[in-house]
């Protein structure tokens, strides 16, 4: 009993010291997060102020008008609602062009990305010394926004789907290349060693040893990219060349009187994006979970 009492005093003293230490640490942490939060709020507030000041119309003046354009468009389209189904059919070819741009650029970009990824993955590279070169190449193609390449190519090649296709394919090659290479890094190297022992060439090693392992992941990434590329191809059409985006721009420039066209384009674009998202979501789940 006395023994226990004798030992309890230093213990409780330890506890007290520990508690004090803990509390100071908590206080310090709260102070730091408080300062960080304050800085963050300040940054957002000043950023908003700057953006607001440099905008043509202010945020508060614009807020009441936010619904006026959609109402204008929708009311006119509602008045001419009989035209909309016909217009949807009329714009289907442009929609197919937009989807084709996305599909081809995803395909070509993914094929390029496969090569780039294998060439820039440690342990798999054909020329290990050149991996940094291929990595930088991917960084740069990823960094250039599609619109830059598309607009420059429109100047040289004229309008149409090809500039957009090349631009999106280049960006896709860089973006997918990075993801592909990360997936390939985690691949099991034993099949490669086995293939090396029977004298397989580099292409055979990759084709038979690595690709079957990473194919589900790569396909899933490529499908995700296809979703993104449909949006990109619509936007590029609006800024520059072919597809549904271009039709949208023309209809918008016309302004009132062609709002039924605008609504038709909005509708089919929305439906396409939702449907492709749903299909690719389901298929990707199946691929990754192996069901």
């Amino acid at each position, binding site marked *: 009993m006395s023994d226990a009492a004798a030992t309890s005093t230093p213990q409780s003293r330890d506890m007290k010291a520990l508690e004090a230490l803990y509390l100071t640490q908590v206080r310090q942490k709260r102070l730091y997060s408080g300062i960080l939060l304050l800085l963050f709020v300040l940054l957002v507030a000043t950023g908003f102020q700057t953006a607001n000041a440099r*905008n043509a119309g202010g945020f508060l003046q614009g807020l009441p008008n936010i619904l006026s354009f959609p109402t204008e468009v929708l009311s006119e389209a509602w008045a001419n609602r009989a035209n909309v189904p016909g217009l949807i059919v009329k714009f289907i070819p442009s929609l197919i062009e937009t989807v*084709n741009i996305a599909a081809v650029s995803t395909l070509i970009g993914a094929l390029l990305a496969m090569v780039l990824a294998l060439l820039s993955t440690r342990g798999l590279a054909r020329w290990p010394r050149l991996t940094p070169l291929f990595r930088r190449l991917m960084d740069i193609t990823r960094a250039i926004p599609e619109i830059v390449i598309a607009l420059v190519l429109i100047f040289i090649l004229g309008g149409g789907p090809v500039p957009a296709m090349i631009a999106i394919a280049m960006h896709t090659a860089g973006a997918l290349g990075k993801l592909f290479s990360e997936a390939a890094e985690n691949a099991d190297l034993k099949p490669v060693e086995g293939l090396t022992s029977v004298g397989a060439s580099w292409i055979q090693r990759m084709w038979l040893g690595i690709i079957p392992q990473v194919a589900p992941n790569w396909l899933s990434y490529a499908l995700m990219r296809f979703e993104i590329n449909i949006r990109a191809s619509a*936007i590029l059409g609006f800024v520059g060349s072919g597809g549904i985006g271009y039709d949208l721009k023309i209809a918008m420039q016309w302004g009132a009187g062609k709002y039924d066209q605008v609504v038709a384009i909005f509708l089919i674009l929305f439906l396409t994006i939702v449907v492709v998202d749903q299909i690719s979501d389901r298929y990707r789940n199946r691929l990754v979970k192996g069901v």
Partner: protein
Amino acid sequence: MAVTETAQADLQATVTGLFARKRRVALAVPALILLYLVYIFFAFDLPGLANRARMDNAAILLSDFWSHKTHVTRDNRSGKVTVAIEGESKGTYPDGMLPSWVTQDGAVTRIDLGQGHSVVYEGGKAIYTDPAYGTITLEQGDRGIQITTPPGPLPPWISASDTRVDIKTDRGRLSMTRSKTETFYYEPGWELFFFTLDSPFYGKGPLELAAMAVSGPQVKPGVANVALMASEFWNNGMWHHKDVAWAIGETILMAFLGTVGGALIALPLAFLAASNMTPARAPRFAMRRIFDFVRGVDALIWTIVLARAFGPGPLTGALAILITDTGAFGKTFSEALENIDEKQVEGIRSTGANALQRARFGVIPQVTPVLLSQILYAFESNTRSATVIGAIVGGGIGLLLTQAIITQKDWEEVAYYMVLIVLMVIAMDTLSGWLRRRLIKGDAAGR
């Protein structure tokens, strides 16, 4: 024995069948891809592309990327000769100042194009000397422009009519119309990138500039040379460094405000859409459909709608990114919330905490690393999309870029903006990667 044999035969049949199927797939997939590419080849009219392609435009573009031209123009009505870089008024040499390759003597102007090529303006006459071909004389006559060349047919690099003569060599270009005579002289490099012609620092070498900055008399009394240099550079009238810097800032600002705003709005909504946070089906279902709708409508359409309400500028771009990101974040955040470890929430609940406290102390600490990493990723990719959105709403570097491309002559500025955009994106990637590693220590995925 017989049983195992039939089993073996079955197995063999299955395996052969599987192999055959695999072989068919291995052939069918490339064949389908090839077929699709052939269809695209004709659908996109690639054979016709060769005719439409403007290779001369490509040549202009490439040469403009790394070189610039100076126009020496004689107004044939007043007889006045002006020398202007890229023919721009801001690049015009002031009276009494000429580049070293132009000499003026009364009404005679000599332009030395190098390698023996030269152009002389003598009154209304222009004489081009090509060391290999000879002398070409152009003169304004009563019946249009008279051209005198060495005997023989005109070479293909001269095009001549009564109203216009064009001489193009690899050293430069001379053209004459009734109203003006013009010579283009090409030099490598981006002209006047640092200081314009009217600046006191124009034409000084880097060493000379450094010496002037450190010591040396003040060019403009009362202003330190370094400060003057900075302001001359900042206010450069040809390259507009100030506006470009602002544009880059606007683009990053759009991405920042859009990402942060989208995340702040999506976080509380994601609680409503997560099945373990909101047991009631109706609000969850509604919230998810709203997220789907917002994502499905697409940044392009949001941008157009918002641009009508708020006018052109960075705020509109930021709001467009904000709305799209709210949909994307809502989905990924609610997925992250559904994957949390319930034990920690149970522990907090056992102390009698209410829903808000459970969320704050049981949920948020668990999901913070995942959410931060997603936000930083979005910020990174939004810097890129802000360039495109800027081109649509009219703000930031995207606007400058599209404007420069639409004029179809300032390709050196296009090259400059392209380099800046790539640097900006790479810098943002690096920054967000660094922040991710700093903020999310022990993120096992390390993505």
